[in-house]
């Protein structure tokens, strides 16, 4: 246990790994020197832009944005993603676990979900725009749809992979059917479900952003859309950098949550998931 | 000829501690000898094999094979590993012809060669099979055929049959000895280094036994019993003596000698 922690610490401060991001920034900087700033601004200029527009971005007000700051737009986007991921997870997990244990339900839902799992969910975006309008609803619905499909597939597979002997053992030891679900099915499937949650969350940021790009009044996607109209590469990269940073932090939080909630799984398996 | 001159090898474990796997080992092995390396787990016998193979470099001293210092692996020194080393993505016959292909042998020639060695190990009927369709014993036969088909002058076997059942292991002893004797008769040499911790296995196979403990070479003696050896060979007086000697080295002497001593006292 202690060696594991020491190993993680050693990996975290491994100078070679830490040199990687520096190298990436250096490569960006070198390319920016060769290209005009209107095409590729240098990293520092983008960082300065993030700082300048973070709390108030007057130029965005000209384009009619309700909430003319990067922070405000980001908060709108984050709210939508959190709401949608929560809703989608609830729908997907309940559906997946039920389908794994009820054969008829599985036979009916599986074909739809497996098809939905392969088609790009993005295809639904224009329909949702017509049905839900350009408000919060269409973007959230798109992300809910995607998260629910991914988590359905993960939960269903996790429950199918769980050796039925554990549930049988719990029942034999005197657990009620509900108790077997609580004590065996849920903890047994949690690691894989959380792995699926991480994947769904990673995809959610891009879907939310493009839904906002296609039609919205606010959000980081809307910011990118108006800046694209003004061919402001620096502004776009600032918005993308911020969104990327949020996605990285959210992923790290999800990974930490997995370690806490399912400490018996090995890191290697999570990496594979 | 294989010559190890004051060879040592250290490892750094994950927790930072230094482990001395081999400590100042010097030994010379004549061409054509069948040598078994025996000792408890972690005594350095596998490390020695990997040094000769060129998969590891010594921390001190030098390893010479046929007058050349070993620098990295080469096809003259073939190795059969403890775990399954057969490439799962190649069909059985393509595994056997892999080494000759690396050397640039013509397709027709290497296919014929591979077919010939598959017949020798009794696997001609599964030449087109995938390795996953084979049992553990069959996979070992493939691994042995791969090394012999490559024509290595030195064969290094690292507990190759340790995970097999009793019957399969004995069948593979026969396969190995047949191939070795045939090719020794043909080329006049073909040295074998065979790592094991099975006392009976090394008595049946070896011309000479090297015993290791804690990284040091602690014993070195010849086994002169005539070949071919059978289970009865193990009952020869010489063999029984060798056996006690090995059991003593492995820390199992109390099991055998006391029983004998007790029987004599009555």
């Amino acid at each position, binding site marked *: 246990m202690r060696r594991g922690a020491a190993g993680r610490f050693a990996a975290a401060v491994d100078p070679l790994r830490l040199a990687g991001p520096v190298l990436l920034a250096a490569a960006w900087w070198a390319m920016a020197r060769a290209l005009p700033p209107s095409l590729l601004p240098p990293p520092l200029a983008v960082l300065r832009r993030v700082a300048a527009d973070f709390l108030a971005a007057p130029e965005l007000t000209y384009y009619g944005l309700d909430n003319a700051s990067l922070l405000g737009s980001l908060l709108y986007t984050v709210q939508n993603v959190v709401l949608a991921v929560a809703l989608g997870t609830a729908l997907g997990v309940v559906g997946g676990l039920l389908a794994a244990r009820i054969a008829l339900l599985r036979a009916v839902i599986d074909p739809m979900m497996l098809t939905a799992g392969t088609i790009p969910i993005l295809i639904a975006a224009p329909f949702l725009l017509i049905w839900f309008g350009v408000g919060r609803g269409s973007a959230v619905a798109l992300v809910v749809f995607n998260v629910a499909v991914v988590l359905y597939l993960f939960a269903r597979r996790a429950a199918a992979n769980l050796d039925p002997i554990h549930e049988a053992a719990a029942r034999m030891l005197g657990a009620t059917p509900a108790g077997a679900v609580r004590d065996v099915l849920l903890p047994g499937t949690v690691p894989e479900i959380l792995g699926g949650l991480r994947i769904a969350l990673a995809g959610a940021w*891009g879907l939310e952003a493009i839904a906002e790009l296609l039609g919205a009044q606010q959000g980081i996607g809307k910011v990118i859309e108006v800046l*694209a109209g003004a061919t402001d590469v620096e502004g776009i990269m600032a918005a993308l950098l911020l969104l990327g940073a949020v996605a990285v932090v959210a992923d790290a939080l999800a990974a930490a949550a997995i370690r806490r909630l399912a400490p018996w799984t090995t890191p290697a398996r999570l990496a594979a998931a | 000829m294989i010559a190890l001159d004051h060879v040592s090898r250290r490892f750094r474990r994950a927790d930072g501690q230094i482990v001395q796997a081999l400590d100042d080992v010097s030994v010379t092995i004549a061409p054509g000898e069948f040598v078994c390396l025996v000792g408890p787990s972690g005594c350095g016998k596998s490390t020695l094999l990997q040094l000769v193979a060129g998969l590891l470099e010594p921390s001190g001293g030098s390893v010479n094979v046929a007058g050349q210092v070993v620098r990295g*692996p080469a096809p003259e020194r073939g190795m059969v590993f403890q775990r399954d080393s057969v490439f799962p993505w*190649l069909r059985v016959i393509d595994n056997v012809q892999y080494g000759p292909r690396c050397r640039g042998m013509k397709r027709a020639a290497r296919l014929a060669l591979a077919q010939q060695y598959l017949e020798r190990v009794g696997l001609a009927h599964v030449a087109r099979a995938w390795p996953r369709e084979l049992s553990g014993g069959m996979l070992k036969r493939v691994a042995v055929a791969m090394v012999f088909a490559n024509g290595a002058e030195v064969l290094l076997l690292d507990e190759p049959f340790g995970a097999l059942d009793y019957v399969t292991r004995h069948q593979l002893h026969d396969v190995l000895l047949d191939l070795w004797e045939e090719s020794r008769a043909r080329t006049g040499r073909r040295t074998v280094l065979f790592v094991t911790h099975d006392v009976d296995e090394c008595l049946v196979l070896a011309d000479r036994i090297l015993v290791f403990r804690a990284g040091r070479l602690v014993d070195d003696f010849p086994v002169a019993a005539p070949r071919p050896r059978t289970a009865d060979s193990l009952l020869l007086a010489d063999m029984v003596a060798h056996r006690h000697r090995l059991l003593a080295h492995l820390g199992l002497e109390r099991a055998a000698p006391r029983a004998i001593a007790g029987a004599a006292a009555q």
Partner: protein
Amino acid sequence: MTARRTAARDRWVTLGVFMALAAAWQALSLVFTAEAQPGEPMVPGWQVLFSRTLLSMSDYFQGGFGIRPISEGGVRSYPAAVLSLLGNSADTLLRLAVGWLAGALAGTLLGLAVSWSAWSRRLVELPAQFLRTLPLLAMVPLFQLWFGSYFIGKVAFVAYGVGVLFFAGVVNAVGNVPQIHIDNARTLGAGQWRLYGSVVLPAILPELRATMLLSLGAAWAAVLGAEYLGAQSGLGYIIVFAQQFAFLDRMFLVALLIVVYTSLSFWAFDRLSAWATRWAPAAG
């Protein structure tokens, strides 16, 4: 019940489910008869979809084969509609295929180059992770500003999305190649290049299968996203163009076509990658 009979039953149920969905759609079209515009129903029944809606695809025909496009005074016709669908499908599929191939090739080669040594592997670990986490679909406008909204812009975008996945997948998979296979090949006389060709490449294939399917999904999303946000042709372009006039029937028809294409592409990929890794023991 045996596994085979269960599988056969599931196939029938699958067929039944899709038939039921189609029937439900037809029922909905009879109940819900609102029209977006005169003659353009919000919920078009199948008889409408395969007559009027299909015919309206002529609007997106750009001419050729002696048939005049609508913009030059031509009239709607079934040949023009079918040619229009085929032409726009070809545009989308070509962008997808070229982008995917370029991205897969570049990502694999870069990944192999980086995994040549453990040092470079450690060096690129964090940057690769960051680029993978960066939301791909939000980057469409950036690629349009960089590469323009023509063929090359969409191909570059698809290639980037696929390339990042392949790069990360290859680096990870090379790290997992069993040492024993590498040692075995080296003792049999394989040099560094042959080691890569005959050991590393086949050994990473089973693990790359997941990456391939993932990247195909990403490629479809990328090509649609790029066509939504700026294109003069392609299936995604038709959908967004129709959406501006709320032509739900046209959107629905093209979306169905895309679902057919994606399902076929995944099926083909699955078969192909299963064949390439047929030597591997079945994964659990």
